[in-house]
């Protein structure tokens, strides 16, 4: 923790770990010249709770509650990635109903996560009302989840080889009803926030993340797509039968100002919610029959080996590198967190911006400290 010697009018501003818009306990050391930020040093680890060490000390199913707690905004997607990786290691092929249900919950969770991301972003920019409108919709999704698996946030739903519960009766209709209610909300949010001139002025042209830079920093997910790279693991490396669904991968277009700005990243998320609705509609239409716990092994004990499983969570590519030694506990679980790489690029893309813009950039890369610090 050395403070570099500097001269002149520069000031060190400690943003966080307790700050309203650092999305948790992120601490940024800003070296500012008036309002202009010259240098940013992120300090992370305030939420480090040794996920990887924990994972070595519990059995394979016991890791799932811990994965839920990493990115607590999108738990379904996290546990899905883990379950898929372990299944790959064990060579389990789940039936079509499990696949379809996993897609349904993952996409619902993606919508919920993007709603939160958009809502908190609006709040970072200073608009409070869109935040609560988004939360109102998100609550409906959480209600669906609670009905399905009993929890609102940390589901423990995707198991190795299956799901903890089948969906309750009437779930399909309720979900359709939610989708019908939700679709107009996107348009309303666009009118209220996305295309508001002040919002555009605040976000377009700020925090430009170029394609080269993004790839070099392995930025993934909506952040990468906001830079115009059409890269989505659901299309590029499909899992859970995503290849059979018809959906588009929205990419940033640089509609207002240069490509890869905060606005582009934000708007990719808005459009991804529409695509998720598309996927949901198809999945609900074709939901096959089957037993969701058909392939759940009595004892999860993968053979010796290792696997790197990756899935597309709402925040990007979440990788699980699992080394198995043939025992009931994993030998090593390493998480490649999408937020980790997204935050690593923050000092680069927000250099020379103003303090208010730093907030805009942090919000636009949509980090969840639980996943970042693990």
């Amino acid at each position, binding site marked *: 923790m050395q403070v570099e010697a500097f001269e002149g009018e520069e000031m060190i501003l400690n943003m966080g770990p307790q700050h309203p818009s650092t999305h948790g306990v992120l601490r940024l050391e800003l070296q500012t010249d008036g309002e202009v930020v010259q240098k940013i040093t992120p300090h992370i680890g305030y939420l*480090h709770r040794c996920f990887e060490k924990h994972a070595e000390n519990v059995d394979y199913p016991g890791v799932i509650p811990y994965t839920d707690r990493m990115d607590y905004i999108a738990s379904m997607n996290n546990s899905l990635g883990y379950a898929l990786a372990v299944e790959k290691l064990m060579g389990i092929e789940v039936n079509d109903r499990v696949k379809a249900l996993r897609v349904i919950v993952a996409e619902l969770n993606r919508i919920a996560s993007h709603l939160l991301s958009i809502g908190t972003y609006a709040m970072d920019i200073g608009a409070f009302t869109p935040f609560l409108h988004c939360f109102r919709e998100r609550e409906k999704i959480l209600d669906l989840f609670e009905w399905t698996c009993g929890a609102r946030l940390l589901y423990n739903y995707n198991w190795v080889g299956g799901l903890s519960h089948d969906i309750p009766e009437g779930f399909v209709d309720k979900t359709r009803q939610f989708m019908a209610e939700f679709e107009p909300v996107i348009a309303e949010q666009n009118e209220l926030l996305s295309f508001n001139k002040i919002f555009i002025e605040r976000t377009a042209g700020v925090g430009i993340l170029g394609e080269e830079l993004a790839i070099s920093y392995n930025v993934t997910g909506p952040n990468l797509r906001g830079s115009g790279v059409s890269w989505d693991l659901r299309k590029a490396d499909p899992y859970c039968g995503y290849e059979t669904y018809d959906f588009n991968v929205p990419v940033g277009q640089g509609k207002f100002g240069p490509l890869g700005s905060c606005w582009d990243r934000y708007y990719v998320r808005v459009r991804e919610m529409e695509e998720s609705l598309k996927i949901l509609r198809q999945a609900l239409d074709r939901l096959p029959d089957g037993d969701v716990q058909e392939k759940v092994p009595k004892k999860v004990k993968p053979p010796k080996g290792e*696997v790197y499983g990756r899935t597309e969570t709402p925040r990007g*590519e979440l990788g699980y590198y699992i080394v198995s030694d043939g025992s009931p506990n994993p030998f090593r679980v390493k998480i*490649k967190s999408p937020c980790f790489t997204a935050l*690593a*690029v923050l000092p680069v893309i927000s250099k020379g911006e103003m303090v208010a813009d730093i907030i805009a950039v942090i919000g636009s890369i949509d980090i969840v400290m639980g996943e970042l610090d693990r």
Partner: protein
Amino acid sequence: MKTAPEILQVLQAQFPEKILKSEMGVLDPWARVEAGSIVEVCSFMKSDLNLSFDTLACLSGVDFKGLKGETERLEVVYHLFSMKQRHKFVLKVELPRDNPSIGTVEGIWAIANWHEREAFDMFGIRFEGHSDLRRILCPDDWEGYPLRKDYEQPETYRGMPVRPVKQFVEMANEGLPVGTNPFKA
């Protein structure tokens, strides 16, 4: 798009002595590279037009200790991916458990900066030439490398107890009036 054996072939042609071992029949095919030449191999893999591994998906340390049939060692595993060619490959490097050190690939893929800091933090692997090798997740003055298998958790950190002093159940077993059965009635 190249398959893993093809990538391995290219590598073996380029670095005949540096590829120590490889396994192709597994889920994620990998090749073990001599520790001293990782930077060389990586920069070749990035710059070669046929390979063009332009991103480092993951960099992990693994501590092989107390595992039957394995020599005690530290491993650094590089999961490489090419956005252009859309193929992937895994490189592994073996390091001794005491005083491990290896060249940094920070100059090749920018994200390696943080990944290597994490590996340093968790396993104590020194990345030579790294621009900013500090602990990243643990506090700067934390002692030990938590993800090593023989890591002992300290009792205190700066005078603060690291673990909860006593669990409620321990208090109860000692006969203290702790805990109730709220369902009794």
